[in-house]
């Protein structure tokens, strides 16, 4: 019973809070240049959509493919930038660059090779989306549902 109580308490205390500031993490982009989540990507009122993905995660690729198809449309409707954060480790991270280019994705790519960013946001599994405006996490989405990119756009437009 006590164990159950413990679990419940932990769970409730977890739900009772909500993170708002994006943690400060330093990581590399696809060109190997060091960037920071709190020093880059800080244009005022611009909406940054951080999509956590991996080369081995089929729903992630499905999501990013789907957004890529409508990305031009998104940009015409809102000041938005999609940042695809690859959590591939040394096993698969060399496949990121050719995959991104092969798929013709237009996103900014960040390499979270030892998963510091993923850990800081408490993400267990990709796909995971965090929408950030003025350094604040406005909302998050755990997992991907085919077609959910349309709802995402609606939510982004509502932020304007």
């Amino acid at each position, binding site marked *: 019973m*006590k*164990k159950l109580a*413990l*679990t419940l*308490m*932990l*769970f409730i*205390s*977890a*739900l*009772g*809070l*909500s*993170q*708002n500031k994006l*943690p*400060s993490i330093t990581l590399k982009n696809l*060109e*190997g*240049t*060091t960037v920071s989540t709190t*020093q880059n990507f800080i244009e005022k009122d611009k909406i940054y959509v951080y999509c956590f993905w991996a080369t*081995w*995660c*089929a729903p992630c690729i*499905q999501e990013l*493919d789907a957004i890529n*198809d409508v990305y031009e449309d998104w940009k015409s409707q809102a000041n938005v930038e999609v940042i695809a954060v690859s959590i591939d*480790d*040394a*096993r*698969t991270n*060399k*496949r990121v*660059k*050719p*995959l*991104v*280019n*092969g*798929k*013709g994705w237009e996103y900014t790519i960040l390499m979270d090779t*030892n*998963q*510091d960013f993923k*850990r800081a*946001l*408490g*993400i*267990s599994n990709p796909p*995971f989306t965090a929408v950030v405006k003025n350094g604040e996490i406005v*909302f998050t*989405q*755990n*997992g991907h*549902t*085919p*077609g*959910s990119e349309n*709802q995402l756009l609606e939510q982004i437009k509502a932020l304007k």
Partner: protein
Amino acid sequence: MKKIISLTFLFSALCAFAQKADTTKTKVKVYGSFERNGQWYTNDKNRGIHQDTVPLRANNYFNVNFNYKKFTIGTQVESYMNEALLNFNPKYKGTNFATYYANYKTKKLDITLGHYYVQFGSGLALRTWEDRSLGINNALRGAKVVYSPIDEISFTALYGKARSGFDVANGDIFGFNTDVNVSQLLNVEAFDFKYGFSGVSRYEKLPVAVQNFSAFTNLFSNRFELAYKNYYVNTEYVFKSRDAIIKQNVLDTNFAKEGSALLVNFGYSKKGIGFDANLRRVENMQLLAQRNLDNYPTLSSTSLNYNDKILNFVPSLTKQHHSNLANIYVYQAQFQVVMDESIQVNKFGEIGGEFDFFYDFKKGSALGGKYGTKINLNVSSWYNLKAKFRYTNNAGENIQNYQAELFNANEKYFSDYNIEITKKVSKNFKTAFTYINQYYNNKQIQGIFKEFDINSHIVFSESTYQLSDSKSITFGLEHMWADNDRKNWAAATVEYNHNEHWSIFAMDMYNYGFDHKTLTISETDLFDIHFYNFGTAYKNGSTRVALNYGRQRGGLVCAGGVCRFVPPSTGLGLQITTSF
């Protein structure tokens, strides 16, 4: 238990304080996550499985961090109740503080006391990380300083002992790393050149009688990255100083050798096309945070079987497939030395490569159709190193030795040739087709004597049909022909997404067509049976709750280059993840 309850209250109080603080604009940020993976192991008459003596098990992780300006403190509490899930490290027991740290971070300086995660280069010399599904957490406990005087240069110095269960391993770990963006430093724009160097040292006291290698084991990594227009070359060379090798789970202080790893990666990529090659030679690169293994005779396993006390990362460079059947014969990088006269398995490392080709047939082209077609060709092949070796020395003592050749391959361990074609057929219909051919050398990889090598063919198709804006249905169909092993496998998956919150899935894997007379199927690994699994998931914001019921395959599970039999199980699973 009281300790934990008071701990929880403390957390709640802190959280409440922090929230309050936040509203009064003192900018204390609180963030963290909670994850629970629970399992209720049940009886399964058809498989002859009796409920485990501890049927209710769950791994719980509660992580919380407090940030005030440049300071952050945090901890992770882990609770394995009533015990850790089956096949997890037996050292994960009870409830306790698993990791804790205090961090001070500015633009130039980043100092951590307590537990930290770190990776030098590609991790061949040092990597500490957490992978909850594999039960890996080898965070170093000590101190780490990262100093970046200018954007182009960074230095890291660290000391620590690696986490093992709720304790730490014996070895003292020292590390130094530097990364320099040379072209940016010299304002060269024609090309991109970066250089990196790391030194890692593990100190563990040796008995006085041991004289043939040092108490310090040192690793040095040199690496560079060069990019010119759409071409790139990256390489890393790691040298490991002479250290004793583990022979049949026991450290053999008479058998000490040096180790090395050479990784070369190059490619070409521009919009719509990508080519990448990964070549690697690894010899004797096992590195543990403590020389001796923990032995668990009752479980017939050692700490190595649970990825416990590992200090570096030598991944298998093969494609990680998401087809269920392609994950039955999974390759593990062969970086360790094994010389076993009784089963005639002698391996010293591995050599081989992985090649990738991505191409996007544009929308409107003949092969692209209205919505475009994407293909990926992936090929990987890995071999044992060719070497001269002997089991006894000139004096006839049982002291082994070997000398591996530089670029000569011996017997093949594994190969994987596959092609994946993804096509959006219409606005509402997407489909992907994959063909995979795998070769798996049972005797060399698993070290278990079997006459045959496996040569399997897999076809896999997955289609998603969008019923409405939020409703969709996904079908997966797979078949595998594995003639030398368990013959045929068929698998099917169906997933229905009702809206952005709810989804359900059902799947089945069925093995058929093998001959009982010629093949002995292990008692723990029955195969004339359906491996079904079904469940539902609810997600909202950063929270996800999933429930499933089904059968887990037993059999050989290989991790970190070693394999062991795991019991089959059937049961009800509950996963909860959330972050805040």
